[in-house]
């Protein structure tokens, strides 16, 4: 008991509709944290869950012998795991913060403290993932994201994460908001480690929605602006070809085109050419704007070393 660590740690837990999971999960979590740390706190975020998950948590806390400080955040309406966990993260005070998006435990419970060990070894962000990626949609998204992202850390399905306070501060200072935490952590520029356990995420559901996937791609990668810019350029080229073809037919055609065809074609191709030209310029400005509004820092530093 005397050898417990002085670090103050927090666990942020998402309460969706997971009745039945709370007691076994909390027993493992609290047992392990109490064994290792002198001080820890729990922050629950109730995302307007109505199936008795919260009651189960309350019962567990009531029955604890020496409960730690516990905070329960009630969200006004269901806002999804990203918003909920951001709220929990803002509330947590710990030097190290666990993020549990779910109370299901498809992983061996010792992973909870293994993540901490990895964190104090110097990895500010530790994410714990199953060996099997889950779901075709999620798999496709991760492949697309990882191929377009410049971060050295690929995204994959994970079941929980551990962040140092430094990582939280960094993530908060790098971008204006955190619409997708996983991507934000990977893009924070700090050292990240992925721990893998054998198996799949099981009941731990992937909470990624299509719209969030699209906005993550737009914010954390340049895949969106690259694709749209490419399309604009292709259309631009096509119009140029059509313009040239019209002129060739007019000057060098064997027989004269139908009355008015040349003017119509000139107007059409010239007009569309202009439209796509403007579009590609506008797109460039738009991606710059996103960059300017979203990114608050122009470069990312992992660490600074003094050699002499």
């Amino acid at each position, binding site marked *: 008991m005397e050898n417990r660590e002085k670090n*103050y740690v927090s666990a942020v837990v998402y309460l969706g509709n997971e009745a039945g999971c709370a007691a076994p999960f909390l027993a493992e979590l609290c047992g392990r944290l109490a064994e290792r740390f*002198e*001080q820890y*706190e729990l922050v629950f975020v109730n995302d307007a869950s109505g199936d008795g998950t919260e009651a189960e948590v309350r019962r567990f806390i009531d029955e604890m012998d020496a409960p730690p*400080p516990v*905070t329960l955040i009630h969200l006004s309406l269901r806002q999804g795991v990203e918003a909920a966990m951001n*709220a929990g993260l*803002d*509330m947590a*005070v*710990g*030097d190290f913060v666990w993020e549990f998006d779910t109370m299901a435990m498809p992983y061996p419970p010792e992973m909870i403290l293994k993540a901490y060990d990895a964190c104090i070894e110097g990895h500010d962000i530790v994410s714990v993932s199953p060996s099997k990626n889950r779901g075709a949609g999620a798999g496709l998204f991760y492949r697309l994201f990882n191929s377009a992202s410049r971060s050295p850390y690929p995204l994959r399905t994970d079941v929980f994460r551990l962040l140092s*306070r430094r990582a939280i*501060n960094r993530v*908060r*200072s790098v971008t204006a908001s955190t619409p997708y935490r996983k991507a934000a952590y990977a893009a924070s520029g700090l050292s990240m480690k992925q721990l893998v356990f054998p198996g799949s995420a099981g009941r731990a559901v992937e909470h990624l929605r299509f719209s969030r996937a699209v906005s993550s791609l737009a914010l954390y990668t340049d895949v969106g602006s690259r694709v749209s810019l490419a399309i604009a350029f292709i259309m631009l080229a096509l119009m140029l070809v059509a313009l040239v073809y019209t002129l060739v037919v007019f000057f060098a055609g064997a027989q004269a085109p139908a009355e008015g065809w040349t003017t119509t074609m000139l107007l059409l191709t010239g007009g569309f050419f202009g439209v796509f030209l403007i579009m590609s310029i506008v797109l460039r400005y738009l991606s710059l704007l996103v960059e300017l509004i979203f990114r608050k820092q122009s470069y990312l530093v992992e660490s600074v070393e003094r050699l002499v």
Partner: protein
Amino acid sequence: MPYDKIIIGAGLYGLYAARFCGRQGQRVLLLEKDAVPFSRATTINQARVHMGYHYPRSLSTALGTRDYFERFVDDFAYCIKADFQQVYATSAHFSWTNATEFKRFCNAANIPCDEISPDKYFKPGLCDGAFITREYTYDAVLLRRQLLDDLAVLPNVQLRFSAGVTGIEQSGGHWVVHTAAGEREQTAYLLNTAYAGVNEVNALAGFEPFSIKYELCEMILCEADHALEGVGITVMDGPFFSIMPFGRTGMHSLTSVTFTPHLSSREKLPAFPCQAKSGGACTPENLANCNDCAARPQSAWPSMSQLARKYLREEYDFVLKGSLFSMKPVLKASEVDDSRPTLVRVLQEGPTFVSVLSGKISTVYDLEEVL
């Protein structure tokens, strides 16, 4: 011979009332349960002389507070510490107010508020606004010394300590007050300034209790590092903290909205589970001094300091010196707007029974209208 007034409770309100009436030549008896005046909430609180900043959700409280501030600081200059910088900040998350609203509120209340960069005191992204304000702190020890000196020259005022009240009954045009020592004293005017004990005294006389919630509160004393020495910091308005000079003691008080209250009770009288461990010394009907209690809760220093350090930049550090505990009554009606009205309730006339409840030191002047 009956007293003109009997006052129950030797906090600031009790001593102030005794002095006020004593100077008018009235015969006054002040009864205090503890051995020393100011043993509870008058000493054990942040010692903030409020200017109104604390109530961004209750302009009426803010306006009243501002008016009393100047008067209190003039009258009690001997116990005021003014030479420090009082910083208010609005938390970027979970706050009921924000930088723009706070500024607007200060303008409406007409209290000084100069915006500075939050980065000077806080880690990035945690506060969306920071303001230099004008607010002071009082020293309870100096205040007590002066008030006792003032009372010592008034032979018509009697102070009796370790004199808990055990019964109050009406006999004709008088109240008969029984003390723990078996004394019986009479008066036509009874003033109840027992603060957390206000309902206890009301109950003895058979009056309705104030509708209050009791909170067993911890205030931490700490020694501030050089950078924090001349600075007081309050983060508004929600589950945050405050660290500011504690009178002229040279120490800082550290409190937080979530960790300062350890236990709460919504009963009419303060009923707490820890009373079972007091060996009968403390009951809902006879609340003992939480600060001297063996069953006082374990300190929340780890959590409170962690919260403050989450916000403050590294150089504003502080070390633990000790904790003080006391019971704090909060009006149930104030929970939404966080207002702190002074309640002066005349419960009966002829013989008169007046109960007072106020959470702020500077509104002591509200008493004068009934004395």
